């Protein structure tokens, strides 16, 4: 199927629960927006960047439009899309400015992909990546298997029929950190020393706890539209798609349910001859630039619904807001009595 997506690259501001605002660069979805209205999206970058949900066999035409950075009008940085993990990529669609082309302010470029392998990937800008990744030009990218069918439980899978990756609901656990000193320097036209990188805020899906469990519509978070609240019925299989586009390793712990690791870097854990290398974990240890797919079964709770399971970073210093707790990479899994939640029609819907 032909898929047309258009993203704008721009800047914006995000909030943390301690009342502070932070300058970001980022992407915002402008698919279908009339040409004479796209400049209304200047300054409206979102964190995390819009999730891209594709399917094996799709013909994807992703237009990147660089609409500039109104808070930093002096800054005329080009931008790119790097589809991280895309197999057999050629230079022209790989988004590395030193090895092909980038998109200047006021211009468009069309990246083409025909995904061939399912899994959880990520995308980000690769222009001066240390700056543009830290500033927020990062998002998840999911490729569904060719036989994906959400109406048939045998075919609602992460990696295809018969791969043991069936699930009922899926959520992003998209990890990213923020060094507020560096973001302030960038906002005020100063040059940071990136080797002094020392994050002070830690995000899941672009939010810090307790914003992670706030509703989608909270107006203070209009440029952070992705909560990280995980809801499921008892007995359902929940697929967590972990992506780390920070610069630190993270150790995400789930209390009360065991996670079966079914995907690492968009590959099923399987040997050269299909040997089954699945394993179970309480903590997902994940490095920058890695992804992990893990499925847990929501436990029964007899009559204490909703049951809450905490999900947090076992590097506990990352469960803070500029040193004060609790905050950061914490969210909740809420388990409900079967038949009480509407079915999920898109990823991360809670």
């Amino acid at each position, binding site marked *: 199927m032909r898929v047309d997506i258009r993203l704008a690259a721009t800047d914006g501001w995000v909030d943390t629960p301690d009342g502070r605002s932070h300058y970001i660069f980022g992407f915002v979805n402008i698919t279908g927006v009339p040409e004479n209205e796209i400049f209304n999206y200047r300054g409206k970058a979102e964190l995390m960047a819009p999730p891209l949900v594709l399917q094996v066999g799709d013909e994807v035409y992703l237009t990147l439009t660089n609409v500039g950075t109104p808070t930093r009008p002096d800054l005329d940085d080009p931008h790119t899309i790097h589809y991280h993990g895309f197999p057999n990529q050629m230079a022209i669609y790989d988004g590395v400015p030193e090895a092909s082309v980038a998109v200047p302010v006021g211009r468009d470029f069309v990246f083409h992909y025909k995904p061939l392998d399912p899994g959880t990937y990520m995308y980000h800008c690769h222009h001066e990546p240390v700056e543009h990744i830290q500033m927020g030009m990062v998002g998840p990218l999911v490729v569904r298997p060719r036989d994906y069918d959400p109406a048939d439980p045998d075919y609602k899978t992460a990696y295809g029929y018969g791969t043991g990756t069936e699930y009922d609901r899926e959520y992003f656990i998209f990890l990213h950190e923020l060094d507020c000193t560096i973001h302030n320097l960038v906002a005020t036209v100063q040059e940071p020393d990136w080797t002094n990188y020392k994050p002070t805020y830690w995000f899941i899906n672009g939010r810090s706890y307790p914003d992670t469990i706030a509703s989608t519509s909270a107006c203070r978070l209009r440029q952070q539209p992705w909560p990280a609240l995980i809801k499921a019925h008892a007995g359902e299989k929940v697929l967590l798609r972990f992506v780390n586009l920070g610069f630190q*390793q993270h150790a995400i712990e789930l209390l009360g349910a065991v996670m079966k690791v079914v995907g690492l870097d968009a590959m099923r854990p399987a*040997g050269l001859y299909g040997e089954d290398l699945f394993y179970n974990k309480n903590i997902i240890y994940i490095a920058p630039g890695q992804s992990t797919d893990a499925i847990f079964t929501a436990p029964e709770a007899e009559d204490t619904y909703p049951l809450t399971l905490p999900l947090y970073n076992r590097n506990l210093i990352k469960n803070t807001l500029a040193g004060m707790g609790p905050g950061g990479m914490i969210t909740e899994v809420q388990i409900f009595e079967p038949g009480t939640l509407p079915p999920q029609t898109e990823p991360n819907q809670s």
Partner: protein
Amino acid sequence: MPTVNLWATDGYISTPDGKSIYIWGFTDQEGGSARLPGPTIIVKQEAPITETVVTVNLTNNLKEPVSLLFPGQENVKANGQPVQPQYENDILVSLTNHALPGETITYTFTAASPGTFLYESGTNPFKQLQMGLYGAIIVRPCDYTPHDSQYKTAYGAGTDTEFNREYLLITGEIDPDFHQAVEYGQPYEAYKPRYWTINGRCAGDTMLPDNVPHLPNQPCSSMIMMEPGEKVLIRYAGAGVENHPLHPHGNHTRLVGLDGRLLRNQNGGGTTDLSYKRFTVLTGAGQTYDQIYTWTGLGYNPVTNPIPTTLPNLRNMAIGHLGWTMWSGSPYLGQKGELPPDVVSYNQAGEYHLMLHSHAEPEITNWGAFPGGMMTMIAVYPSGTLAPHQGMLPTEAY
């Protein structure tokens, strides 16, 4: 039996931003300067029933005791006796037997497993490893035959580790203030790396060839060069003290060996392959990762299968914002195209350059300035254009 002579001494290395940094390191030339990393020792195992005993004579030309650790090797001896930690007044001074200044010590070990290993100083290692006293050892299987594809393997025929070309990438970190403090004999407590190296060089020097004259003590390139469809054995060796998430663009790597041990279990008479694929490998301190990388491309060519998008006019794309580009000017492998007149292209044959870098991105800077640090390129050359000697490490070197 292989015998290696190493001298521990000092010297200087260069960074691309113009710094000269004092190091300690190993050389295989008597009276030579320290090099970073130390000379790569490559040995081939003897026939299976014979032990492959490697002898390393270390002469210490530094002003404090130095030693060698051989992690992952068996039956390690110093001057004929099993190695032991060294104590003075019940305080640990070395993880193994050391050579005092001016002395020579003879180590032997049995290279019991093919694979990639490190050698490194075990004396005051926090200081000495930081200063550059490390290098790599490659052990080849006894049936290794470079001109027979079935026997050109990392772990032996029948282990699914055949390769066409091979590259060794040794990672490290440099805190220049620490190096300066050691040079001037000053105390130093904090540790704060500002440079990140592959094979002792920071990007863009990583992409220069071997043995460039202006980097006499950093002779090893990290540029990976290959042709489409080839199997490239990439050996990561984490020589520093930190972990680095290394991400090659263009494809996953298939990890076939960890710490010089094949990822395969014997299982009830059969074999279970435990190799796995990743697009980012967290290269841990002291650990090694043998991986097979291939790239076949997407099949586009300008005549029968053009790319499905129209590229903008040259002036509507940003090309070579640093003043240079690795791009050919054409989207097609083996083709060249127009580039802006003020941009220098380092592209040779219309090859693709796919970046390989640490995804902990502050590490791809030189003291904060991108591009730099732990970054290199995988250059995919059109079939038949790459010099046959590229990616051909010797069968043995010592």
